[in-house]
């Protein structure tokens, strides 16, 4: 069965970030033989004076294909993991969404989009989770991480929100590479210009310092821009990717 796992508010300003914990949890799932996990995406929530967050208010989500009989064990493990690994003073939340048979996908997506726009109370998150039958739990502090955890699954479900965690180390003899080579070496599924045009597999791209992909149309998408001076494609800068 396919599930989404999302965590939020696990850190304090001096601790490891939530993204690192999400990757550790995904690795645990695979190490236990419960299933295989997809790369982690980062989803930005609303930044507002009425929302208590550490420094950026982002949630981290990944998909996993698991053996259905292991869902209970996996959920118990994830709960214990958050209790053990979250930083002191944090307000961690965990959401696990079984996608097979989930009929209220639209409600989850609407909630995710809403969490980017307005302040939401914890009770609203719990009410939705109960109504649509997904796991939502808090593991310390005020527990307000449940809002971002639930919202993060909705945003991942849109297929059009967030950046993938980490950056790619692409082996090449120069700083130039083709989309085909990038897709061979990484989880990138498509290379597109900022205008949305798909590059053909043999075009030339000049690699920037940090090469990252974003979630677009449900795919790990590498965005590039045309550099008129060099008349070439370049991978997008951090500055260009921050809106994703």
């Amino acid at each position: 069965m396919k599930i989404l796992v999302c965590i939020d508010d696990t850190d304090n300003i001096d601790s490891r970030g939530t993204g690192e914990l999400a990757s550790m949890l995904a690795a645990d799932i695979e190490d236990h033989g419960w299933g295989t996990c997809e790369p982690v995406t980062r989803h930005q929530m609303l930044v507002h004076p009425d929302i208590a967050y550490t420094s950026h208010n982002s949630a981290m989500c990944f998909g996993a294909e698991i053996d259905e009989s292991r869902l209970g064990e996996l959920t118990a493990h994830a709960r214990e993991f958050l209790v053990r690994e979250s930083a002191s003073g944090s307000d961690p939340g965990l959401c696990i969404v079984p996608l097979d048979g989930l009929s209220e996908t639209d409600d989850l997506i609407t909630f995710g989009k809403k969490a980017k726009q307005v302040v939401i109370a914890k009770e609203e998150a719990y009410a939705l989770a109960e109504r649509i039958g997904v796991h939502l739990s808090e593991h310390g502090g005020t527990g307000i991480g449940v809002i971002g955890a639930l919202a993060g699954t909705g945003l991942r479900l849109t297929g059009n929100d967030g950046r993938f965690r980490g950056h790619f180390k692409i082996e090449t003899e120069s700083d130039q590479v083709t989309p085909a080579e990038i897709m061979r070496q990484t989880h990138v599924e498509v290379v597109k210009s900022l205008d949305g045009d798909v590059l053909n597999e043999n075009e030339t791209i000049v690699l920037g310092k940090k090469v990252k992909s974003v979630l677009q149309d449900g795919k790990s998408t590498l965005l590039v821009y045309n550099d008129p001076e060099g008349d070439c494609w370049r991978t997008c800068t951090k500055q260009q990717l921050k809106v994703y």
Partner: protein
Amino acid sequence: MLWKTNKNGNKEFLGGQESRHLAERAALECDMFVADDEDECVSDEPRSCYNCRYRRWTATAFECLKT
């Protein structure tokens, strides 16, 4: 003047969220800079308040949690 004191009593950056060169200058002048997780870094200047673990985003800029 790069900063004001906001109503939380914290130092808030006056350059907003798009003044990459000012944010770089502020971090170069600060000996408390610590790079945030790579996933949270948004500036191409590695040493920038925008990439610092101690910047806390506000709706229009960020506040510094260290100074």
